């Protein structure tokens, strides 16, 4: 840094001083009110967002299930469960630091055991034999690594029972696997994270293991690449916030 750089730096710092940290304190007070209201501060925890359908909706779904099995109309069942949720809505997602209003459309997963809202302008849900895959509507060019979010249900194993197996699978596939953590956002459950490299196209994965409240688990596997972390990664995150299990 030469003399001019030093002088420029000094002049800027002189002009941007926050006298007696006034702004700093004002901003913190506002942040504290906004992010940590008194109630939640008392118990030192954020209110956990339940990802499960409220009991009344679950009960309604059960009634629908009962009637639909009597009338043997699987199609009607799907339609009716869909009726419980709004078919389209607008969500605000943060993409690369900017809020973006996005229209999302209700989709049901395999055997109507969960619902999720999908940004259908960019993604599509493909139902498979054992799992569902949300992937880009238009195929990506070959130079890009896979971008997808797979949702599958393991009906006979709880999250605690499968977490170590999935950790090992991730360690075999990715060079850097971070410690498993319990998260409440975008969904409540275990979060596993793996990445191989630090290039723009290094593959990244996030695996969420969610209790299906029936002795089993939902496993959600996000795949994208490093440069897409704040694009596809953020969009998957926003979609996953809208994931609901139909109990």
């Amino acid at each position, binding site marked *: 840094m030469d003399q001019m750089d030093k002088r420029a730096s000094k002049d800027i710092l002189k002009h941007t001083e926050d006298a007696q940290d006034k702004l700093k304190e004002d901003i913190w007070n506002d942040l504290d009110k906004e992010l940590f209201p008194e109630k939640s501060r008392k118990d030192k925890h954020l209110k956990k967002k339940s990802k499960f359908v409220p009991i009344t909706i679950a009960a309604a779904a059960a009634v629908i299930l009962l009637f639909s099995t009597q009338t043997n109309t699987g199609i009607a069942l799907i339609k009716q469960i869909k009726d419980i949720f709004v078919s389209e809505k607008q969500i605000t997602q943060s993409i690369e630091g900017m809020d973006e209003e996005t229209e999302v459309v209700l989709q049901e997963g395999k055997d109507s055991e969960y619902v999720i809202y999908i940004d259908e302008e960019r993604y599509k849900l493909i139902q498979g034999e054992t799992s569902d895959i949300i992937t880009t509507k238009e195929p990506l060019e070959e130079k890009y690594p896979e971008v997808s979010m797979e949702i599958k249900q393991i009906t006979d194993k709880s999250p605690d029972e499968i977490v170590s197996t999935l950790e090992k699978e991730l360690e075999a596939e990715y060079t850097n696997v971070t410690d498993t*953590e319990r998260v409440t956002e975008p969904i409540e459950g275990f979060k596993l994270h793996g990445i191989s490299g*630090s290039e723009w196209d290094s593959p990244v994965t996030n695996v969420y293991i969610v209790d299906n409240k029936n002795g089993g688990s939902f496993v959600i596997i996000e795949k994208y690449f490093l440069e897409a972390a704040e694009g596809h990664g953020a969009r998957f995150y926003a979609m996953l916030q809208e994931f609901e299990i139909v109990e």
Partner: protein
Amino acid sequence: MHENIITEIKNGNRDAFRSLYDEYASYAIRTAKAITRNDEYAKDAVQEAFIRVYRNISSYEPALSFNAWFYRILVNECIRLLNNEKKNIPVDTAQQKQDTQLMEHSKESVKDLYEVIQNMSDLYRIPILLKYIKGFSEREIAQILELNQNTVKSRLFNGRNLLKKQLHLTEMEEI
């Protein structure tokens, strides 16, 4: 940023968030003041940036520098506020003409380089502010502004040349 602080923030820990705030707020305020040239905007930008960081920390990718991620959010917020005020300040400054009237500063005596920088085009002004306030490297500035590193290098080079030119003019006048 320490990984355990980030983990604690993800868990909603207020004290951890306060630690992050204490570490980042002062320079974030300086940066926002310099970019927006307005204390009220600076306050709004910093506040909004921290809210976004708190709410989106789960989407933070540790392979990227936390500094770059934080300052990208902050700078975007500053630019958004400026755009709200003046619709003619483009977000993508790369579209601006690079070699015409780069700054409107007059040839009057330069007492303060801050004024010179503030009269530059955003094309040069914002990378230079990031360099001088926080000492960011070209690579980090490129990550923050989502530009090619060579582009940043060239803008810093041209910006510094403008500063030198202005200083030289002053010195000549003083002789």
